[in-house]
């Protein structure tokens, strides 16, 4: 069954890098970005998400890796 797009459901057009709590939902336990099969979001949301996560990592809001 296809999962609903989280960002479309919550009507988030612009995924902000500062919104750490939302971004954390799409990280694996090792802090890697979940794949599109796992996250179940639309392709354009997935692209926006990965960009936002990478920006958050640069600003020290999210880790690059968790051992």
């Amino acid at each position: 069954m296809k999962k609903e797009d989280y960002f479309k459901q919550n009507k988030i057009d612009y995924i902000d890098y500062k919104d750490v709590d939302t971004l954390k939902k799409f990280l694996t336990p090792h802090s890697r970005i979940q794949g599109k099969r796992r996250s179940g979001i639309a392709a354009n949301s997935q692209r926006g998400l990965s960009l936002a996560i990478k920006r958050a990592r640069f600003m020290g809001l999210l880790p690059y890796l968790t051992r």
Partner: protein
Amino acid sequence: MSITEDHKQEVQVYELGYLVLPSVTEDNLPTVVSKIVSVIEKNGTRLDSEDPFLETLAYSMSKTIGARKYVVDEAYIGWMKFEAEPQHVEAIKKDVDAIEEVLRTLLIKAPRETTFTFAKAREAKEAAEMPEEAAKEEIAPEITGEIPVADVVVE
């Protein structure tokens, strides 16, 4: 010709995220922020901003000033939204990076409307936590009330 000239003139909304070294005291923070504001207002107009606050970083960062290397685990994080012509943006980033107290900057294109602020997120988080705490308090007395009953059965 005229089309390309018009295109050059178009302003774009940008967002500047910045980290300030934790060695700066809370009282001196506004002076650092005003330094950033003065750089931006030289070539653009400020639209929206949020004052920096101390935040624990997800990993340690370092900044070398002169011969000293500062390794930090926390920093003040803030952001500012502004409007500027694309040809001035590189100069703005360079000048903000040149401020000694600034640890890191992130300059990105952003939508004009602000949909997220740290203050709003904090409020939402507190509001979400409140009902949970109230629910826990309700459950707790019931459990303590049941324990003596269980003891009686064992005896």
